[in-house]
C-alpha cells in the first residue's frame, strides 16, 4: 500500500486521536510541564509530516500503518524527552540509605508496595505484575486474568495515574 493509499484508506481521525491520547499520557507519566511551547497535537503533526516527507519511510515498513505511525511517534517522543528525563531524574531527592534493592525482584516488590500505599487495588497490582513479566498487550492480559479487555483498559487508566508518583518514589534505583 502506498503512503497516499494508507493516508486515504485508514481511519486517520481515529489513529490521530489515539496518537494524541498517547502523547498526553506520556507527558503525564514523565511529569514534564514545559513542552517548549508545543502542544501534544504538535508532536502528532510533526510525526505525520516526517512520514509524508519520506523522512520516515513507510514503503519499507512490515506492519500496519497504525503500528508504523505509533512506532515513529514513540521514537520522536523518546528523542524529545531524553533531555527532560535526565534533568528530571537529577532533581529527585536521594533515596534513604539502606533502602536500595539488591535485585530486580526486590525492586518489583518495592514498586508493588508503593502502589498499594498509593491506593492501588488488587486488579491494578495484577495488571502491573503482568507488565513486569513482559506481558504488555491489553488483550493478552485480559485473557490471562480472565477479564474483559475493556476492564483492562479501565484498570490501565487508573494505574497510569499512579505512575508519576511511583517514578518519583523509586526512580533513582538503578
Amino acid at each position, binding site marked *: 500500500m*502506498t*503512503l*497516499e493509499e494508507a*493516508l*486515504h484508506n485508514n481511519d*486517520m*481521525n*481515529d489513529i*490521530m*486521536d*489515539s*496518537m*494524541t*491520547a*498517547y502523547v*498526553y*499520557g*506520556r507527558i503525564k*507519566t514523565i511529569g514534564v510541564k514545559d513542552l517548549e511551547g508545543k502542544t*501534544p*497535537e504538535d508532536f502528532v*503533526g510533526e510525526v*505525520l*509530516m516526517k*512520514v*509524508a*516527507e*519520506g523522512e520516515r519511510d513507510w*514503503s*519499507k515498513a512490515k506492519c500496519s500503518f*497504525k*503500528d508504523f505511525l*505509533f512506532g515513529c511517534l*514513540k521514537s520522536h517522543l523518546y528523542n524529545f524527552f531524553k533531555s527532560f528525563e535526565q534533568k528530571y531524574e537529577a532533581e529527585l531527592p536521594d533515596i534513604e540509605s539502606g533502602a536500595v534493592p539488591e535485585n*530486580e525482584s526486590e*525492586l*518489583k516488590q518495592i*514498586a508493588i508496595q508503593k502502589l498499594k500505599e498509593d491506593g492501588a487495588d488488587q486488579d491494578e497490582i495484577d495488571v502491573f505484575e503482568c*507488565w*513486569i513479566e*513482559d506481558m*504488555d*498487550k*491489553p*488483550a493478552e492480559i485480559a485473557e490471562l486474568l480472565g477479564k474483559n*479487555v*475493556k476492564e483492562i*483498559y*479501565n484498570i*490501565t*487508566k487508573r494505574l*497510569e495515574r499512579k*505512575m508519576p508518583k*511511583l*517514578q518519583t518514589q*523509586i*526512580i*533513582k*534505583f*538503578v
Partner: protein
Amino acid sequence: MSREIKNKIDDALFNFYLEADKDTIKVSLQENIQNLVEYEKKKKKILFLAKATANRRHNESLLQLVSKFQEALLMNIEKPIAILKQLVQGNPSFALYRNLDKISKEDIIEIIKDKNFVELIEQLEEDEKKH
C-alpha cells in the same frame, strides 16, 4: 526506577494506547483537552497538510521516474528498458504498450502509476551507479 522496569511500564502504556478502543480514547481526550472543537480543527489541518505533502512527493517521484524511463528509451539503456518490459509483460491489459519505441509519457505513467515508486527509483539508481 531501574531502566528495565521503566521500559516495561512505557511499553505497556504504549500498547494500551495503540490497542484501546475508540470510546476509551475519546474519554482520555475529553479528560485532557479543554477545547475539543479547536482540537478537531487542528487535526483536520494536520491531516490535510500531510496528505498534500504525500501527494506532492508522489507526483514528483512519478515525473522523476517517467523522465528516467524516457531517457533510457532514447539512449537505449538496457536495465531500465528491461524493467519497463517486465512491467508491461506482467500485465495483460498493457498489451497495447508492447512496442516500447512508440510509447508516450502518458503511456509510461499508465504503466508505472500503481507500482512502488521507491523500489523503482532504487532499482534505476542502482543501475546508474554501475555505469
